[in-house]
Each structure stands twice: as structure tokens, then as C-alpha cells.
């Protein structure tokens, strides 16, 4: 993906599947959702969290 990291110049960044899964794991460890949980994550459609969610 191309990312500016919000404040920098846009540059190519390699985002791996395991990287995204590590992110999910971090969220899970911190916020301990269970089978009855429902998470709402509304990013802009061009955000990596939206493209990865698809």
C-alpha cells in the first residue's frame, strides 16, 4: 500500500497477512472480545483497515 503515516510523504509499505493478523491479535489481547461481542470499526473506505476488512 502507499502510506504517508498521516504526516509524512507517501511511500510504498509492504503489509503482510501475518502483520494484519498480529494487529487483530493485539486488539484481542487488549480488549478481550468474546463470542458475544460485536465490534464497530468505521474507517474511511480508502483506509487500510477498510481494505483489509473486505
Amino acid at each position, binding site marked *: 500500500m502507499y*502510506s504517508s503515516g498521516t504526516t509524512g510523504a507517501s511511500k510504498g509499505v509492504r503489509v503482510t497477512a501475518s*502483520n494484519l493478523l498480529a*494487529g*487483530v491479535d*493485539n486488539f484481542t489481547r487488549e480488549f478481550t472480545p468474546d463470542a458475544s461481542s460485536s465490534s*464497530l*470499526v468505521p474507517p474511511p473506505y480508502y483506509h*487500510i483497515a*477498510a481494505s483489509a476488512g473486505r
Partner: protein
Amino acid sequence: MQVVGSSRCVTDAERLLELMVAERTTHAALVPVIIRMLVEMPEAQEADFTSLRTVVYGSSPIAPGLLARAVDLFDAEFTQSYGLTETVGIGTLLRPDDHRSGDPTRLKSAGRPAADVELRIVEPGSGTTLTAGEVGEIVLRARQ
């Protein structure tokens, strides 16, 4: 644990509020601009947020007054997260305990590094690690 996800195109804050209530959202990850939309929406004042346990916010600084209104409206645990989705999402965390401290200086902090995140503040250009209190550039490394 089974994780089921779906994505929907939501183009206005009213629809977002409907979704949040209808799905009995327990965890919400929101940016301050969306928190402001919800907090200022008349329908939100009467909405049922009893299922909501955790609000994670980040991506831009939050005004102290807005944070206070959000805590009041949602009545949930608040955590601030700083990071980049293309690293590991959560880089640092300002946890619910920090929010309960009521210390305005603490609330301006981005918190502490999350588990498995290496973080340093460096001098831009040289990359030399700076000591506590010095202003520099944040470099972080997370699991890949």
C-alpha cells in the same frame, strides 16, 4: 473463538448510530471527528448504549471537553491508541485506568507501548535515542 466480519458502506453519522445500537456494539473504534458527530447528534442522547463496554479512540488528538462528553454519553471504558495500521495497529495505549485518574496531563499522553511493540524517541536525521522529556521522532517496531 469464531470471528465473523462484514463491511457495509455507511455514509452518514445517523446510519452509523443506528448500526451501533442495532448490533448491540460492545467495542467501538472511533476517531474524534466521528465521536463529535455522535456526541452532538440529538438522537444519540436517547440511544441505548448499555451494550457498549469499550471505546477505543485515536488517529488525531481529542479535545478534553469532547472526551468528557463522550465518557458521559457512552458510559464505557475509554482507551486511546496511537499507532499505524501498517505497523500493528495498536502502537501505544492510554488505558481506562489513566482515564479514570482525571489528570489532564495524563489525558494528553498517548500512553505506553503495547505488548510486543518496541518504541524509541529519536533525534530526526541521526536516529540517536533521546532521553525522557526530549522532543523527537517516534520509531516503532512490531510483530510482522
